[in-house]
């Protein structure tokens, strides 16, 4: 019997290696796997590359990893969101590297990896500073910039409900990057509010099919 559920967030993030690329879903403070990030902090892997839309908030989760000196690089679109003091301090101290990527390009680069593609040409950033050093090509009179695929060693995800196979449904705008990151990592782990019986999720409404999910941990709804 397939059962991807694990007993704890610690078990969910077991095995993450130093230097890993960690896909962290979420937008602002919504749809973030807070408990998995805390568990990753306890787990101890360091020299991490974090892929996330923002760059941590307050002093928990991703911000705590940064404060503990565990993050070598952040790939994000918008670090200046909420209380990003942890990132700002490390950025100013030059203890971490920032790769700034437009929001839709981050998601599409992961989508490309998930789809087995070697990258894509995009009009976004053409003729701007962010295209400097990148390959470009004119197609039908329009300048495009080549973007490479982006792959995670692990994706830390948050969903509303799962079944034991790992089929997932989300909660409104907490969906955001979760389904894309689920498809783009070697190991995709998800914290959910609720585990439901196999067969009880409407197959027409499942957003992430189980093939993309490796581990599921139930942490309950936010207090």
């Amino acid at each position, binding site marked *: 019997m397939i059962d991807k559920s694990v007993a704890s967030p610690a078990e969910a993030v077991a095995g993450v290696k130093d230097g890993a690329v960690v896909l962290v879903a979420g937008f602002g403070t919504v749809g973030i796997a807070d408990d998995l990030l805390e568990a990753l902090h306890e787990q101890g892997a360091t020299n991490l590359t974090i892929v996330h839309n923002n760059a941590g908030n307050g002093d928990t989760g991703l911000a705590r990893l940064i404060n503990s000196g565990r993050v070598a690089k952040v790939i994000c679109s918008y670090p200046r969101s909420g209380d990003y003091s942890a990132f700002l301090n490390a950025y100013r101290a030059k203890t971490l590297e920032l790769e700034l990527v437009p929001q*839709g390009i981050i998601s599409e680069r992961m989508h490309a990896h998930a789809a087995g593609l070697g990258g894509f040409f995009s009009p976004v950033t053409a003729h*701007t500073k962010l295209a400097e050093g990148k390959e470009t090509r004119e197609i039908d009179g329009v300048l495009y910039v080549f973007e490479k695929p982006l792959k995670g060693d692990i994706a830390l995800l948050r969903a509303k409900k799962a079944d034991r196979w790992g089929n997932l449904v989300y909660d409104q705008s907490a969906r955001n990057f979760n389904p894309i990151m689920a498809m783009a990592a070697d190991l995709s782990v998800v914290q959910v509010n609720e585990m439901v019986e196999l067969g009880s999720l409407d197959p027409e409404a499942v957003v992430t099919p189980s093939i993309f999910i490796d581990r599921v941990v139930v942490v309950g709804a936010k207090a």
Partner: protein
Amino acid sequence: MTSSDKTATYKPLNRDQMAWRAAQDLQEGAYVNLGIGMPTRAASYVPDGREVIFHSENGILGLGPKPEPGTEDENLIDAGKNYTTLIKGGVFMHHADAFLMIRGKHLDVSLLGAFEVSEAGDLANWTTEDPSFPPGVGGAMDLAVGAKEIRVIMDHTDKGGKPRILKTCRLPLTAPGCVKRIYTNLAVIDVTEQGLFVREMVEGMTLEQLQALTEPKLQLANNWQSLTPPAMAA
């Protein structure tokens, strides 16, 4: 002529009036993305009876008004990370699809804020190059290339009264040649291959006065009108 003489005979629009003006151009059935900040206010001023569908980069099509106090949902936020609501018929999608809609010419209008716009419609709205802060681009570059029409809403001048509509942008570009219409606190200006055309100016303003606050040459459209929004508290 002193600057007080120049401003004595007209009154700039306040931010809600600017948002109101931009909203009047959103057509029935349009799919529209509103940028963070002033563009977001336009959602409140769509004329009654007109159905306009708002898109949010974080995966919402059918964004509604702010929730009533006490009804906020922690998992329902807009691109500015403020609590929002979903209208009837509204749906959620993941980020790659949200940006496919943005990039792939599916949206009718993208209404953005700006620091500077050039006479060629170049847009600079993502960085002021302040070295003490990390840069952030968010969805700005995606939004500036993909909609069928890019419009900008911004103050006509900076806080020191210097033009923000320029011959060439001084700040790093978000995208070249993308802006088609500019709504400012003084005027509505179209960017065309023949140059900048003033469609509307606030009441009492002359083209000479507007030109003094604008770097590239302005032309008055034949059918130009006075820009007269309803009174609104600032």
